[in-house]
């Protein structure tokens, strides 16, 4: 009987050894791939940082107001952040590749879905970023125009415009990501529509006088070239 | 009275020509202005004479001119180049006898050349017997023949003509101890035309010459005949009355003869001298001449166009006389101050050239001896409305001598060849009436008739061609003028028209090549035939007619409908 146990143990040990022998190289391969991935990701990160510096990405980010946002959240600057994100994504990608090599079927599907998700993630980030830029630009333009034209409450106008654009951008981004797109879309539609309706009503009824004055000023300004109380700047 | 033609034996190669019987002969004439003294000396006394002039009639006929204008050849002390006359009915002995003159006249007529002579009506020399008598005493019968005064205050404000030498229009006569009136030099007392005796005498003088056969009389200094207090003493109505009377008598006794007025006035002021065709036949158009020079320097047609457009219309039988240069200075009286300064600065930089508000230079030196400019100016002279006058020597491009006094620099001997005395005389060169031009550019070895007649491309040859072309049509002498105004203001273009004939003249006043587009829509369908080479230029269509021209080039185009 002792011999049978030894024999079985032996057999089991052999199985284990076989298993290890089967498995170990793959782990090794995975580790190698991971290491490689780390290096590649690092290169990408540095390269991207360099490129972004050259392209003055930070300034664009400042314009967009993202820098402010990030500062508030105690995150590093946008180009740094972006580089790091790219680093992690790339490394993760390589790791997943390595995992794939392990041959564990369970992960395969999730891995491929991850890779499919990536472009949409980037697209969404892209949209959000440029949406923020645009919002900030148009808000500022509106603010300046309103201040110089001596319109009442210019800040409100600017914030309004910024909000609209940001909402729109976020909606688009979520649509890209495919996360609760319908909900967001509907919510946006309701909010936007409601806002527009409200504005229309305000202009049409309550703000009639204001609108009239506003239009008059616009229209008449083109006709008249002179006013009593301003001096010629030139 | 005109002579009929006769063929004279011995004149082998000369053509004998009929004098046109046309009463308007002066409209088609090409006039050659010459002083007998300068042309040819036959008796070697150093002074040209009528026999010599007669010898050279062949040359003149070949040149193509049809009328000779002779400077005064009367007996005279010659203090004003013969315009101070001491005897109206004779010829100065330097130039020959009255018979010499008659002979010359006959020969000229045989060659188809008419003769115009000077008649100085306004004044005589102080050596004239009339003045000698007049000044001798206040009771002399001829006293009233001149204008005397005890003071020099009368006719104040009258302008002085010879500014460089005279300071007043009155001169004090020591003999009769009073003042006499003279618009010109002080040795040229003015005749008193308020005196009928003077008027009759002057007519009889004119008659003397007309009976001899002279075809035309140039009446010198006519604006100044009559003086009146409180006026400018120029162009007075009384003057015109006298002139009309002379003309009436001329028409009555000598039809077909011509009276030419010398009156340096603006064209508008000259108009009265034509009357209604009952005063002068021709008058000099003085103002256009300096403007031609100015236009060429400015490279802008404005001066010429302005003056020609301001020129008033004259009665049909009347005609303007045009010239580039003459025996006097190039007068700048009839230009504005700005223009005068410009002319002085550009044409007479050396003050020695300036005289009496004018420039005393010949044509070629004025144009820097530039052949193209000389041709252009002559081309304009021959194509403007009027009768052209060529000053002797300008047809070969003679030069001048500014170091001779007064205006004698442009009155040097005619240069016939490069030999002894330039072929003018056989006298000693030192004995000539005037030194010859001797510099290497204009001197007689370089510029003379003989050398130029040997070349088919000399200025002389070209002038002959120009004159012949001008004579080929009556349009130039008798036609109307209408200016075209192309955008390129360096080009002067106009159309001369007479009944069905039309000639387009285009002149490039600029020293550089020019392109010009002419609006010839009125003449659409015509072809242009260039008159010198008789080549056909493209037909006029709807588009503006494009011509490209070299520096100082000009075209004469006959417009023809085939």
């Amino acid at each position, binding site marked *: 009987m002792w011999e049978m146990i030894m024999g079985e143990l032996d057999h089991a040990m052999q199985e284990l050894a076989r298993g290890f022998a089967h498995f170990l190289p793959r782990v090794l391969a995975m580790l190698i791939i991971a290491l490689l991935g780390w290096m590649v990701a690092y290169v990408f990160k540095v390269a991207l940082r360099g490129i972004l510096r050259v392209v003055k990405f930070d*300034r664009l980010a400042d314009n967009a107001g993202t820098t402010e946002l990030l500062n508030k959240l105690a995150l590093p600057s946008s180009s740094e952040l972006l580089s790091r994100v790219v680093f992690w994504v790339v490394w993760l990608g390589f790791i997943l590749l390595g995992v794939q090599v392990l041959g564990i079927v369970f992960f395969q599907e999730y891995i491929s879905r991850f890779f499919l998700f990536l472009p949409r993630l980037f697209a969404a980030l892209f949209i959000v970023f440029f949406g923020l830029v645009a919002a900030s630009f148009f808000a500022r333009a509106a603010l300046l125009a309103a201040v110089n034209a001596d319109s009442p409450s210019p800040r409100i106008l600017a914030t309004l415009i910024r909000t609209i654009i940001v909402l729109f951008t976020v909606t688009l981004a979520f649509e890209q990501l495919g996360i609760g797109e319908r909900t967001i879309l509907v919510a946006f539609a309701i909010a936007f529509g409601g806002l527009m309706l409200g504005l229309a009503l305000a202009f049409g009824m309550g703000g009639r006088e204001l609108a009239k004055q506003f239009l008059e000023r616009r229209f008449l300004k083109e006709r008249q070239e002179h006013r009593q109380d301003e001096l010629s700047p030139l | 009275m005109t002579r009929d033609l006769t063929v004279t034996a011995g004149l082998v190669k000369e053509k004998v020509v009929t004098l046109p019987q046309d009463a308007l002969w002066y409209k088609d004439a090409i006039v050659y202005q010459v002083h007998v003294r300068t042309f040819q000396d036959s008796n070697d006394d150093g002074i040209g004479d009528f026999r010599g002039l007669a010898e050279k009639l062949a040359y003149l006929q070949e040149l193509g001119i049809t009328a000779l204008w002779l400077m005064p050849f009367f007996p005279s002390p010659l203090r004003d180049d013969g315009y101070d006359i001491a005897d109206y009915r004779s010829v100065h002995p330097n130039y020959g006898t009255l018979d010499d003159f008659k002979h010359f006249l006959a020969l000229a007529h045989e060659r188809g050349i008419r003769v115009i002579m000077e008649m100085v009506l306004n004044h005589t020399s102080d050596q004239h017997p009339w003045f000698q008598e007049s000044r001798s005493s206040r009771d002399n019968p001829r006293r009233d023949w001149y204008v005397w005064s005890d003071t020099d205050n009368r006719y104040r404000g009258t302008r002085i003509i010879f500014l460089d030498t005279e300071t007043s229009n009155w001169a004090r006569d020591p003999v009769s101890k009073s003042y006499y009136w003279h618009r010109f030099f002080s040795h040229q007392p003015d005749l008193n035309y308020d005196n009928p005796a003077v008027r009759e005498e002057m007519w009889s003088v004119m008659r003397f010459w007309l009976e001899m056969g002279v075809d035309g009389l140039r009446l010198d200094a006519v604006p100044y005949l009559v003086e009146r207090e409180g006026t400018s003493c120029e162009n007075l109505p009384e003057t015109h009355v006298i002139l009309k009377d002379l003309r009436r008598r001329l028409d009555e006794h000598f039809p077909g003869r011509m009276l030419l007025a010398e009156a340096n006035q603006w064209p508008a002021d000259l108009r009265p001298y034509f009357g209604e065709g009952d005063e002068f036949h021709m008058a000099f158009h003085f103002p256009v001449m300096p403007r031609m020079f100015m236009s060429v320097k*400015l490279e802008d047609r404005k001066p010429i166009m302005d003056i020609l457009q301001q020129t008033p219309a004259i009665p049909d039988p009347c005609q303007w006389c045009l010239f580039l240069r003459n025996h006097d200075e190039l007068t700048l009286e009839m230009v504005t101050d700005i223009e005068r300064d410009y002319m002085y600065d550009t044409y007479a930089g050396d003050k020695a050239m300036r005289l009496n508000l004018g420039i005393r230079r010949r044509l070629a030196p004025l144009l820097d001896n530039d052949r193209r400019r000389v041709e252009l100016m002559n081309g304009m002279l021959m194509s403007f409305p009027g009768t052209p006058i060529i000053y002797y020597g300008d047809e070969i491009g003679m030069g001048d001598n500014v170091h001779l006094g007064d205006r004698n620099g442009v009155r040097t001997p005619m240069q016939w060849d490069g030999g002894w005395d330039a072929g003018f005389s056989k006298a000693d060169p030192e004995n000539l009436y005037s030194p010859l031009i001797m510099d290497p550019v204009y001197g007689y070895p370089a510029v003379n008739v003989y050398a130029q007649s040997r070349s088919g491309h000399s200025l002389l040859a070209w002038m002959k061609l120009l004159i012949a072309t001008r004579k080929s049509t009556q349009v130039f002498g008798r036609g109307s003028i209408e200016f075209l105004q192309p955008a390129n203001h360096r080009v002067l273009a106009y159309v001369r028209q007479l009944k069905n004939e039309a000639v387009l003249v285009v002149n490039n006043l600029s020293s550089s090549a020019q392109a010009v587009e002419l609006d010839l829509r009125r003449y659409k369908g015509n072809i242009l035939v260039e008159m010198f080479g008789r080549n056909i230029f493209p037909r006029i269509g709807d588009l503006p007619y494009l011509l490209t021209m070299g520096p100082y080039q000009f075209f004469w185009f006959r417009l023809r409908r085939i």
Partner: protein
Amino acid sequence: MSVGEVDLLVSVPTHNSAQTVGETVQSIRMGLLKYFPRERAVILNADAGSKDGTREVIAAAASNDLQRSANLYSLRTLPCISTVYGDSPETDVALRTVLAAADLLHAKACAVVSPDSTSITPDWIERLLRPVYRENFDLVMPVYRRHKFDGLLLRNLIYPMTRALYAKRVREPYALEFAFSDRFGGHLLERQIWDQESRGLAAEMRMTIAAMAGGFRLYQTFLGTKPHVDRTGADLVAALRQTVGTLFWSLDANFQYWSATGQPESVPSCGAEYDLTTEPIRVNRKRLYQLFNSGVAELEPVLRSILSPQTLADVRSIARLSDDDFRYPHDLWVRTAYEFASSYHKSVINRDHIIQALAPLYRGKVYTFLVENRDASGPEVEANVEELCLTFERFKPYLLDVWTARE
């Protein structure tokens, strides 16, 4: 152009100027005939699609009979050409047309005259062209007699800043009337400064700056009184764009030059150097103060990106003053202007927005100017302006620091 070669070219850019241009052309003709009778000249009308018969008026004025009325005689033809360069006025294209014409016609001296100058006299032609044609200057800028409250933008910002940085005392760097030489004209054409980027910037001002930076000989000539013209406030932003925008843009382009200049040298001039009229005119100062205040308050986030924290704090502190006590000190104004310039250079935000943001601050400065000079005489105003200029000069190193500092 069949006009051929000319010596002098006088250009009149027009757009619906039929009311005033007839007189202008007459004066130009008289001036040319009187002072340059022997020169070949041409009058060029660069029209921007006028619909009120401007070109016909010009043609009539150019050909009517001057001689009798003015006792002037013209030796030459004085052609007058008219050309249409577009549908709407663009100073760029107009200037380029003039330069091209001057080049084609080999004009030695070229003058540009505005058709709105109702006070033009024939002398102007002489004063504009003589320095170029006879004395070899390259660019002649005008000097006008103005009301003391006129041309405030020029006096409070453009003139002092240009003078401090480009080291030339040109009083009116932005002018509608000037004259230039063929040498300078050729330089401008060559440099091809008419590219897409600089569209909308005042061509005249760029031209002046090009002359200053290029070492050309400048001259100033007195051209009489400039009539007082009222304009609306909205034009302020457009004016700022044209002048200040051009100035800032040029600073960017000409850094090499202005960073190395020293003391400003004066420019030779003829006629009254400067002159001010002081008749009383109505001015609404309160509004300026209000606009300044509201501007500073509302534009705070924008100004934060443009100004340094210190300057912004100072600005906000003066904004808190009441309208009686309010003063915009010279120092602060200079710092403001310089920081705006350097922010423009770095494009911290969209450049056009930077210009727009300057408007309220400028209004504050104008308010101060008006208050300080309310009862001042001509020379006193002049002294104030001079002081401001010196302040600008003094702070030039500050500008250099800010310009080259990295965030």
